């Protein structure tokens, strides 16, 4: 599989703020890649580096096999971008903006596809830019992106402002894009959206990538909570690696275990005799919350090394 986006060690400072601090990101061709992180983590800055709008201070960036700063014009013809905060020109209608953006890219919009998308997103293309609501401005940019035949879609929090019905339409569209073999970089805050759409995700915080992988792999890296009624008090728990928040009341054990150490724990429990056992896999929320909470970078580093 070839990579559509390959970024390593990206650094960007604005004055004293270090917006990107050694960020890595790798997106394979044809995948939908979730790009997650709390506000101010550097998602939009990364995207702006990828678009060649700003220049990184250090690090290596390859986009569709080219350098986004040097080859920006050639690369831009092959990608479509939806900004997080869409502003439109007063006096230009939504329909005009959609056509204009397509023509700027050089290949115009497919009329049939454009009409179908307008219908699906229930967007009135005859309204002027300043009269659209936030959600409708977002739709204008989305329709423009989806009716292009760009091979890479870069979407920066594209569903902020869309209602749940429109979010469904958006998801269907992204799924179709994937089926058409296109690559999507989706920056998002909405967990269900990421879970439904993304093949792989990267989580960033404070300008660094703290986790990257498929959702299954990420779950693997987190803790499972276990509650067990045992026949006798368990022994040797202290020696087990990866065990957290242990509460032992007589023969009842509650604990968290790193998912890759689950096996050892179960063996110790079986040795003591299991009366009942509940284990709950980590929810995606827990996964995210762990990274969104403002802990020190130590916690992030711990996860990365494990």
């Amino acid at each position: 599989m070839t990579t559509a986006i390959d970024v390593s060690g990206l650094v960007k400072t604005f004055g004293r703020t270090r917006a990107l601090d050694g960020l890595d990101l790798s997106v394979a061709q044809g995948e939908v890649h979730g790009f997650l992180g709390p506000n101010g983590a550097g998602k939009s800055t990364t995207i702006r580096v990828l678009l060649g709008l700003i220049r990184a201070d250090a690090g290596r960036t390859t986009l569709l096999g080219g350098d986004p700063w040097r080859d920006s014009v050639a690369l831009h013809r092959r990608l479509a971008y939806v900004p997080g905060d869409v502003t439109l020109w007063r006096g230009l209608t939504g329909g005009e903006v959609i056509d204009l953006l397509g023509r700027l890219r050089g290949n115009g919009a497919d009329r049939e596809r454009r009409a179908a998308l307008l219908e699906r997103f229930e967007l009135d293309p005859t309204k002027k830019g300043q009269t659209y609501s936030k959600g409708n401005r977002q739709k204008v940019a989305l329709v423009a992106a989806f009716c292009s035949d760009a091979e890479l879609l870069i979407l920066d929090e594209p569903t902020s402002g869309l209602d749940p019905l429109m979010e469904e339409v958006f998801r269907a569209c992204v799924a179709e894009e994937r089926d058409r073999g296109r690559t999507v970089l989706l920056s998002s805050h909405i967990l269900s959206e990421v879970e439904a759409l993304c093949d792989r995700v990267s989580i960033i915080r404070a300008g660094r990538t703290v986790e990257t992988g498929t959702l299954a792999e990420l779950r693997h890296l987190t803790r499972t909570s276990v509650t067990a009624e045992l026949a006798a008090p368990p022994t040797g728990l202290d020696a087990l690696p990866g065990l957290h928040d242990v509460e032992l009341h007589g023969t009842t054990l509650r604990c968290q275990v790193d998912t890759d150490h689950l096996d050892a724990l179960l063996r110790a429990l079986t040795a003591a005799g299991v009366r009942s056992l509940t284990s709950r896999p980590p929810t995606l929320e827990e996964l995210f919350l762990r990274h969104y909470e403002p802990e020190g970078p130590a916690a992030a580093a711990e996860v990365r090394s494990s």
Partner: protein
Amino acid sequence: MNITGTGPLLRFALRRDRIMLACWIYALLASVLGTAVSFRSLYPTTSSREQLATSINDNGSLRALYGAVYDTGSIGALTAWRILGLGGLLLGLLCVLLVTRHTRAEEESGRLELLGAGAIGRGAPLAAGIGTALTASAVVGVITAVFLAGSGEQVNGSLAFGAALFGCGVCFAGVAAVAVQLAETGRAANGIGGAVLGLAFLLRAAGDAAGGNGPEWLLWLSPLGWAERVRPYDDNAWWLVALLLAAGAAQTALGYWLAGRRDLGGGLLPQRPGPAAAASSLRGSLGLAWRLQRGSLLGWTVGFAIGGALLGGISKGVDQLVSSSAGVQQIVQRMGGSSQVTNAYLATAMNLLAMVAAVYAVQTALRLRGEETSGRAEPVLASGVRRLTWAGSHLVYPLLGSAVLLLAGGLTAGLGAGVVFGDVPSWTGRLLVAGLVQLPAVWVFAAVTVALFGLVPQWTGAAWGVLGVLLFIAYLGPALNAGQWLLDLTPFTHIPKLPGSAFHAAPLLWLTLLSALLAGTGLAGLRRRDIG
């Protein structure tokens, strides 16, 4: 309608606008006080004032521009005559802008919704907007009255003069109070207010131009006509001041009545839907820039055509006017560079047009920064448009659009002068050239803007400051007997004074080269810097 919370909103508005208000009020007062002071030295005797009155009142175009001189007995009356027409217009414009800025523009941006959810009455923002406008008008009116009375003019007349100015502000604040209910956007509301102002000025001008022999009654349809007919120091027609205030109050009441009949964010004039698909001309970054700039270019061109026709049309009366005061003669010759008064006057007029064109050049060049900070440049620059192509598409307007303006102004000035002097082709040709030679000076301002934009983008707005200082020197320097080294700082000084003087290509080439260097540096910076 409930106006709870007007006080805090008004204080907030005044605080937000403190710099803009200070600049406007300073400029308005400087023109009032400056006029009074300069008249004192230019027309010290009653006979010189009578000579001025004759030359103005005999000339229809001059009457249209300034109104008729009604009293030559005092400097105060002469100042009031000179100021009330144009000063009232400018104060009216300030009030329209202020009311719109604090009502419709806030509503459009969504910020009003944030405030409206607080303990703020529905009527408070409009009350605060009008309060801001009234505060500004009152400051201008009071200082005018105090200054003139303090400098020995009749007290009653000075009060009437200040009150007439204040009345203009109140009346046009009222116009804006209605306009912001009708339009859905701040820009459209300003458009309505501006159109009413323009109409008021035209009606006043037409009435005064017609004088006793024609439809003079037209000026009674215009608030600016009422203000003019207050005739401070002579009639002191306080009832016209009352009429202005009553008109303002009535329109404000109408504004409130309309506001009760619409939703937040909605307007009473329907938004017309536009085309569902882009015309084939909306293509590429050049097509986009044309679409964004064409309306303003058209408006400015019409303005230049009218201004040129006015300036050209009055050129015949200028001989008399100028010869009525040795002081004026000297100033026109310093600015116009020719001993022949008509030529010197026309060269000055073309110079004035060029200064206004420089404002257009800076404004259109700043569009680049506006597109960048609003985030609208980003999708364009992420769609395969080169940065230089993008910048170039917009720079067509400061560079070539300003040429269109100068040609339009030169053309109509030439036609106007040709009609009053005879020999239209010759005057037209001469003034077209006189307009076009100003272009390199205008370019310098566009180029300074581009240089700032490319190298220190967060300081792009400083282009207005550069423009302001250099225009101030160019406009007032000659009248204030400024040293040549100071005058040499502004590009306008170096432009050949056409018609009348000899043509020199060298300064034009130097200015063009300077512009190219500045713009080139700016564009090189733009290629290398971060966007946004």
